[in-house]
């Protein structure tokens, strides 16, 4: 069990973040038009990139445990608070469709020179302040319906981890097929050349 290294230092943060931001930008995820294209069904990149990343990372985590490199329970699995996570997901989905970003992609958008991304960030700070100000009345919702600590899909479904990953991969494959078909029908996806005019000085 040599992993995880539990390194929460500056270099670890900068390295993980650098790769995160570099990949997001190269996927086109700094552009709110491309990002929101997911919900107009024109551009399925958000679904494709996220689902692929989840499966690749889940597979590598599973393999690390199989080869004894990482212990079971050695990495963080969020405990579900079903209602709060559902309502929070709805709010962030709405915020994404309306504002064009989520927290991580707003950082990518700003790095690409977008003023609207700064405004989105100001909004996030205001939203966080509102949550803190309303924490009294919101606390009941925040703490409602907790699930088992670190509950995984394996705990929920009672089937082995490799089978969960296989099922997710099958769903992703179906999503890729469906998404590419719809993209073709809707005239998407957004290419870099659609979003960045070449004559910009």
């Amino acid at each position, binding site marked *: 069990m040599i992993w*995880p290294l*539990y390194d929460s230092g*500056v270099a670890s943060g900068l390295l*993980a*973040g*650098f790769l995160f*931001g*570099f*990949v997001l*930008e190269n996927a086109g995820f700094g552009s*709110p*038009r491309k990002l*929101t*294209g997911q*919900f107009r069904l024109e551009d399925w*990149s958000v679904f494709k*990139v996220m689902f*692929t*990343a*989840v499966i690749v*990372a889940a597979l590598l*985590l599973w393999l690390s445990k199989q080869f004894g490199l990482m212990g079971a329970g050695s*990495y963080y699995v*969020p405990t579900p608070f079903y209602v*709060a*996570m559902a*309502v*929070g*997901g*709805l*709010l*962030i*989905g*709405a*915020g*994404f*469709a*309306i*504002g064009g970003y989520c927290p991580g992609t707003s*950082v990518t958008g700003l*790095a*690409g*020179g*977008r*003023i*609207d991304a700064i405004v989105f960030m*100001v909004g996030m*700070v*205001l939203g966080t*302040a*509102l949550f*803190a*100000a309303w924490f009294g009345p919101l*606390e009941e919702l925040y703490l409602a319906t907790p699930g088992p600590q670190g*509950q995984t*899909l394996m*705990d*929920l479904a009672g089937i082995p981890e490799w089978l969960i990953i296989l099922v997710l991969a099958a769903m992703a494959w179906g999503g890729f097929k469906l998404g590419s078909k719809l993209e073709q029908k809707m005239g998407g996806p957004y290419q870099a*050349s659609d979003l960045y005019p070449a004559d*910009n000085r």
Partner: protein
Amino acid sequence: MSPRPFWSPLWAGIALGLALFLTFVLTGHGLGSSGFFTRLTAEIGQWLAPELTAANRYLGDYVRGEPLQAWITWEVLGAFIGALVGAFSGRRFRPQVERGPSSGMGSRLVLALIGGILTGLGARLARGCTSGLGLSGGAALAVGGFVFLICFFAAGFLFSFIVRRYWQ
């Protein structure tokens, strides 16, 4: 100068999955973003209204130490630098207010602000955002991550109908 093309979603997804796995190996947890904005809010609260912030039951704990001294601050700074390198090397850096062709600058900025407020509220309620809970929780095969993702996509489709004329 014309921009370089984006990576294909499959390769970008594989690269993101590798970066996410590396983060788990390094730290024992995944990537995140909204935690930084919580800490930033605590820091700003400390400048503007120190007593109110210290007395607040949610933000109070953050200002007992230095709110921004945390791994997530370095990670978000790294993400900014990484995206900057991506934008410049891909010839995609453009100072602009990005908006749909029929959307005015004012309405775009108002919608960006409203979207940000909803996102800030939602991320605190869910204890994470698309990266911290959706992506990282999803990779850990956490039930909470998938509850979040299903609701995120459902609301995205719903609200997209209402605002689609601003983007198209």
